[in-house]
């Protein structure tokens, strides 16, 4: 029953979505207010329909209805309920439905929030969002319908299709808490970039290319950017503790797919400030918004179509053509609009100096785009080379690292320098005042690092740069707060807090930068990892750096979902016992092929600044079955990646807050209805 309701809801959603697009466009064309309003209501209706469909799918998972193919392929009876629910986005059909659902939710929020404020743009915004939605709904309905019945072709015994008694289970790699939240976060990011795109399109169509669309979409862009950052970080965290190879980023095509929109989105968030302040880079920003959106769709395409080999490219599937067609249409339509509106996108100012805020933003953009281009090129190289030369050539980590490591270091440099440069032209005097102390301090720290044994050039540069940026950020807070204490008599800490909440955008931004610094420090620790491997029986020991592992117990265990080989390992730091590590090797039972999987044990040294991880993998049993093959990694600084990520998210949240008790001063708008109290607190 639920399947029929879901199926019907999808069909209805398609009709309603198509109607919404048509009604919105025709409504504006014939200036028919009722039609426009009806188009908007249809968009809300589409949200209700897709929501119904996703609830039905969730219900089918919850009750393990294996007569539905998607359920049978991604769940089994013994799967815990939270994994059953997260299986909604565990495979092709469901995760696309999930994408489409988030899009309609965003659409509903945008429509409700902005309808009155931007009445002339909104019908177009609705039309653009609903067109994207129509594309996804078409796919749900015609290509990858999650409500299809199970058909087992090769049942020789009985010609009648039968319902399997149990499903073939969720991929054990996805049976993980991070996998429950990683895809929703990532998708919230991907999908979120559709909103700025829709506003950009609406602004171009209505020729209202003033600040309005940029201000309206700034928060949306930041929200999408934040979710995408969380998604990427959780993906890294998942890979780190689930895949058992000791690292968190492997330049896998799927990882790259999420990084590309992030890079362009980051470029946009920065260069848009230049447009707000100086009225420059308007065409450029337009192109960035378009590219961010296109890259989000492209990323979904890359993950879902199987065009490139990847650890989790899911299928050689039929949806590639749909995506390719949609990408071509969306990109050419958007670029045509930009081209047609070029005269309206004229710059109001020009670059004046190489050493200015503008130029630092420009270089920031240039290298972020270069990074994105390199990642794109490397990811798509097998496809491109096969098309051009007929031979499939892949490139791997050395290619990506060679290009992106120097870019990241340069970007870090700009992170430190950019925010302190004056607009237009920075004077030599101000350069000295702002940068001399941090530069000297960072170089001194660099000398200490070198003496302490940091001889890896890039890692050294990364660390020195991080220290430099950290000092500039701390100084900014200190200077601002100090000035406040003089004026208000507040204590320093109090002043820091008030300062931050009175100018959330600026200081939130600094906190984001600081998070990035910590992330960067953690990432540079990758240059110093060491590893070791041994066959260990009970009582055997293995050394790695200042740590010793001692095998205390080997056992086996059984769970309805999997069977496991378990080890209990004592970890000694310089001879003192600090932890019990419990790595496991599980074999998941569901499906035709039992699927082995390692459960990594990680000891994060909490008392130690380096926050090094001792990372232990149960790689398997020796052939005689008496010993365990244990692999151990020593990963310095890794915890800083996660700490930095958290700080980055907190910073973004602060930057999203409205400024506390400041007078709202706004330049008069060309927009017809400037509501004076329109402080968009909800955005």
């Amino acid at each position, binding site marked *: 029953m639920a399947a029929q309701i879901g199926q019907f809801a999808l069909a209805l959603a398609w009709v309603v979505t198509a109607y919404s697009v048509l009604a919105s466009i025709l409504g504006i064309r014939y200036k028919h207010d009722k039609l426009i309003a009806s188009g908007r209501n249809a968009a809300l209706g589409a949200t209700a329909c897709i929501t119904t469909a996703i609830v039905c799918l969730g219900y089918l998972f919850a009750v393990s209805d294996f007569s539905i193919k998607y359920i049978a392929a991604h769940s089994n009876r013994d799967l815990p309920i939270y994994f059953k629910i997260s299986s909604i986005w565990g495979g092709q059909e469901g995760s696309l439905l999930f994408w489409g659902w988030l899009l309609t939710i965003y659409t509903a929020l945008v429509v409700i929030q902005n309808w009155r404020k931007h009445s002339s743009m909104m019908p177009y915004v609705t039309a653009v969002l609903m067109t994207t939605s129509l594309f996804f709904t078409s796919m749900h309905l015609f290509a990858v319908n999650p409500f299809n019945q199970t058909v087992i072709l090769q049942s020789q015994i009985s010609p009648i299709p039968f319902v399997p008694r149990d499903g073939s289970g969720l991929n054990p*790699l996805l049976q993980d808490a991070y996998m429950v939240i990683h895809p929703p976060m990532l998708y919230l990011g991907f999908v979120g970039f559709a909103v700025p795109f829709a506003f950009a399109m609406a602004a171009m169509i209505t020729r209202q290319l003033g600040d309005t669309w940029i201000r309206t979409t700034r928060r949306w862009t930041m929200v999408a950017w934040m979710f995408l950052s969380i998604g990427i970080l959780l993906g890294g965290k998942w890979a780190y503790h689930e895949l058992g190879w000791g690292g968190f980023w492997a330049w896998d095509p799927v990882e790259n797919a999420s990084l590309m929109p992030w890079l362009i989105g980051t470029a946009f968030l920065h260069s848009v400030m230049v447009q707000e302040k100086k009225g420059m880079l308007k065409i450029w920003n337009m192109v960035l918004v378009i590219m961010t959106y296109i890259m989000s769709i492209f990323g979904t395409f890359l993950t879902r179509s199987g065009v490139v080999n990847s650890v989790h490219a899911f299928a050689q599937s039929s949806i590639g053509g749909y995506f390719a067609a949609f990408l071509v249409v969306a990109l050419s339509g958007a670029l045509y609009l930009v081209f047609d509106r070029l005269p309206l996108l004229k710059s109001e100012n020009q670059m004046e100096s190489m050493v200015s805020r503008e130029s630092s933003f420009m270089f920031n953009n240039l290298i972020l785009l*270069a990074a994105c281009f390199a990642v794109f090129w490397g990811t798509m190289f097998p496809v491109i080379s096969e098309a051009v030369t007929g031979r499939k*050539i892949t490139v791997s980590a050395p290619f990506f690292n060679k290009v992106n490591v120097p870019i990241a270091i340069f970007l870090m440099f700009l992170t430190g320098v950019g925010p302190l440069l004056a607009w237009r032209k920075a004077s030599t005097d101000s350069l000295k005042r702002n940068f001399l102390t941090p530069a000297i301090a960072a170089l001194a720290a660099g000398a200490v690092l070198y003496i302490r044994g940091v001889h890896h050039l890039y890692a050294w540069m990364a660390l020195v740069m991080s220290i430099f940026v950290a000092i500039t950020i701390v100084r900014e807070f200190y200077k601002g707060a100090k000035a406040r204490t003089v004026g208000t008599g507040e204590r320093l800490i109090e002043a820091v807090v008030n300062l931050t909440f009175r100018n959330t955008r600026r200081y939130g931004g600094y906190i984001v930068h600081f998070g990035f610094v910590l992330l960067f420090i953690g990432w540079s620790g990758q240059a110093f990892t060491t590893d070791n*491997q041994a066959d260990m029986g009970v009582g055997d020991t293995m050394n790695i750096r200042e740590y010793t592992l001692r095998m205390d117990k080997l056992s086996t265990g059984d769970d309805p979902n999997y069977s496991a080989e378990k080890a209990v390992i004592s970890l000694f730091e310089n001879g003192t016992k600090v932890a019990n590590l419990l790595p496991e090797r599980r074999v998941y039972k569901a499906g035709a*092929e039992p699927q*082995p999987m390692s459960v990594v044990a990680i000891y994060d040294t909490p008392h130690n600044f380096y926050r090094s991880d001792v990372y232990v993998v149960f790689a398997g049993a020796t052939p005689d079955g008496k010993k365990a093959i244990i692999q151990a990694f020593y990963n310095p600084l890794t915890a800083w990646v996660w700490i930095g990520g958290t700080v980055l998210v907190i910073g973004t949240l602060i930057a999203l807050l409205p400024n506390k008790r400041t007078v709202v001063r706004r330049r008069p708008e060309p927009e017809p209805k400037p509501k004076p109290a329109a402080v968009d607190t909800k955005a």
Partner: protein
Amino acid sequence: MKRKQLKFAIGSVLIVLTLSYLAYSGYQESKTYYHTVPELYSLKEKAYDLRLQVSGDVIPGSIQRDGKVVSFVIGAEPQTLRVKYVGKDPLPDTLIDRATAMATGKMGRDGVFVADTMLAKCASKYEKETAAGVQISKKSN
């Protein structure tokens, strides 16, 4: 104004050139030719010089462990390839009988492919679909 724009242009070109150089050298270092097992054999002599990625299904029962080195056979009879994995990272959990393995490394003169990087996709857990959307089940029964 013109002179300043020139400066920006030079700065940008320098950055782009540096990055292009880095990209090119990274490409030279890591470029890998992708082939299936039959294609690999059709390369003949050329197969020994290039860095290759070979993909094929793991033949059931062929996975052997010998200390740190793991070897197995991929492909379909009669054209099969013995792969010896000597990489630093732990072997992926997904490398089991009938999984699709992608081994990256070099072809040895003794006919054994020496891999330093392994990717594997478990056949039964990942969907294999034809263009028409019909599921081809790889299950043995």
